[in-house]
């Protein structure tokens, strides 16, 4: 049913006698909310008449912390926003910071960051699809998806030493360069991933229960998607042809051949299909980046005073030691321009932007996050009205709300 008609149904029900309406508290600790979200649903029998989201259960003042920690330290906090694809947040944060500082990365660093960001997209989409299917009763797809995610965690661990919160990027470069083991593991992953992807497709694409529970559920029209500020797969499933990787090419995306996956119908099933196909495109980008990985240093030149010099030279030369000291001491660090900048990346969930205000020091004066989950959760009441209570989990699953990013 189109949204306009649904709204009419809902309003009629709400203006009449309220006696038969009942209120259901959904969350904050319901398993299908995945994290701490709360919804106050007004129901007419099983039909949702009104939904009021109540958020903030996981608010932990990340943006305030961003005004206290320096550009490199804050990456550990950024990790914990969308913890489903942490490395994409790191890339986005340092993208904004480097834009403020005016640092141009080395080509190798750009390629490695692109690989990491795309792996994060695959890992995010796998979880989103797996969990959405799990909520709708398709348990096997969830296990197949998680099997692949496990391999991705291994790859992150090989690169950074940490599975879940890699904290891999640094201003002007990366924590470590990648090694042969990483390349080997990534090649093995890329070889097996299409098969695993096809398995999940076979489990869900023609699964009658899955289709009936997602098709025509939570329809978001193109105009609504733009009006409500939707980005990423949610906007693309509604026919908004926008992808920052193409529209405002950053990192090395301009070098690669990939498609922007879009759909028209804007329902939960379309969002599922868009995510599914995006994973294959991401794998294609990773493959191209890996095979064309440029040689050379991974960090910008040490003379730029933006990166830590190599450990060996810190011990052997006074200049390097001074530079190391300057970057470590809280009253020295980077000399950011007294100006402000907005930098956005296309992460798995949509446009993840950072509004960074520099005041001449190495700590952001303001580190605002534009979290896609926050924008998308505001859309939820528009999508659910008029549908059944069992559709709440289908719509929530298709929006992929991550509460840690939502509340920050």
């Amino acid at each position: 049913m189109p949204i306009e008609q649904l709204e009419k149904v809902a309003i009629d029900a709400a203006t009449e006698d309220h006696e038969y309406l009942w209120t259901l508290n959904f969350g904050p600790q319901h398993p299908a909310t995945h994290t701490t979200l709360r919804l106050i649903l007004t129901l007419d029998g099983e039909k949702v008449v009104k939904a009021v989201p109540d958020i903030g259960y996981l608010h932990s003042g990340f943006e305030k912390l961003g005004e206290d920690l320096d550009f490199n330290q804050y990456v550990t906090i950024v990790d914990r926003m969308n913890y489903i694809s942490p490395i994409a947040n790191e890339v986005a944060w340092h993208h904004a910071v480097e834009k403020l500082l005016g640092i141009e990365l080395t080509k190798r660093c750009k390629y490695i960051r692109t690989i990491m960001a795309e792996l994060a997209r695959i890992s995010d989409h796998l979880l989103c699809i797996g969990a959405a299917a799990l909520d709708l009763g398709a348990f096997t797809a969830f296990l197949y998806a998680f099997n692949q995610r496990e391999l991705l965690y291994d790859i992150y661990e090989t690169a950074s030493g940490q599975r879940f919160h890699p904290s891999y990027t640094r201003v002007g470069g990366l924590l470590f360069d990648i090694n042969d083991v990483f390349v080997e593991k990534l090649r093995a992953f890329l070889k097996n991933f299409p098969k695993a992807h096809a398995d999940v497709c076979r489990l869900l694409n023609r699964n009658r229960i899955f289709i009936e529970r997602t098709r025509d559920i939570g329809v978001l029209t193109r105009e609504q998607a733009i009006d409500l500020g939707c980005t990423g797969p949610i906007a693309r499933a509604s026919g908004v042809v926008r992808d920052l990787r193409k529209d405002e090419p950053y990192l090395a995306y301009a070098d690669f051949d990939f498609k922007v996956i879009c759909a028209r119908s804007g329902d939960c099933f379309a969002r599922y299909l868009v995510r599914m196909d995006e994973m294959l495109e991401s794998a294609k980008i990773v493959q191209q980046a890996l095979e064309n990985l440029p040689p050379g240093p991974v960090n910008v030149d040490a003379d730029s005073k933006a990166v830590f010099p190599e450990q060996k030279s810190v011990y052997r030369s006074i200049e390097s030691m001074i530079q190391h000291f300057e970057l470590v001491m809280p009253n020295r660090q980077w000399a950011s321009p007294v100006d402000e900048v907005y930098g956005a990346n296309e992460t798995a969930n949509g446009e993840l932007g950072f509004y960074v205000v520099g005041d001449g020091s190495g700590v952001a004066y303001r580190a605002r996050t534009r979290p896609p989950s926050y924008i998308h959760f505001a859309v939820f009441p528009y999508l659910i009205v008029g549908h059944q209570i069992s559709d709440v989990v289908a719509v929530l699953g298709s929006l992929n709300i991550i509460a840690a990013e939502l509340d920050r």
Partner: protein
Amino acid sequence: MLMAFDTLTASLRERFGSDSFTTSEFRANRRVHVKPDRLVAFLKYFKDEAGFDMLAELTAVDYLRYPGAQNRFGVIYVLLNTASGERIYVKTSLNEAELTLPSAFPLWKSADWLEREVYDMYGIVFEGHPDLRRILLPEAFTSFPLRKDYPLRGKGERHNFPVITRAES
């Protein structure tokens, strides 16, 4: 096709007069600074005539101890043209005692939660917003924590939250 910033500035000057706004550019972020009382007129112009159909981001900054700052608060609207992909940053300044702005909700529905967050964190009131309540913090919270005069470790609110024990619930 990206509209050159000069062309946009020229059409703005023609429409609103050259003394009603200033522009600046930094790292390809093209900003238009306007006075709070002209804000809605500018936003309407950008939406209806210049094609900026999406409000991608709305945020505020407290410039209390910022080097060279003249106004206490800045509110930034990041507008996006989904057809051409260009962005424009509309910025307005506010000072204490007059912390109200007209709401952008009638223009873009995405302003709903974004304005609520700015109100929650900075105490800037958006007039005409349909439901301006705190969003991330509890209703009973009295301060605005992202203001620069609010301490990093809080003012002890956390220790004074009422705790419901299992026996009472």
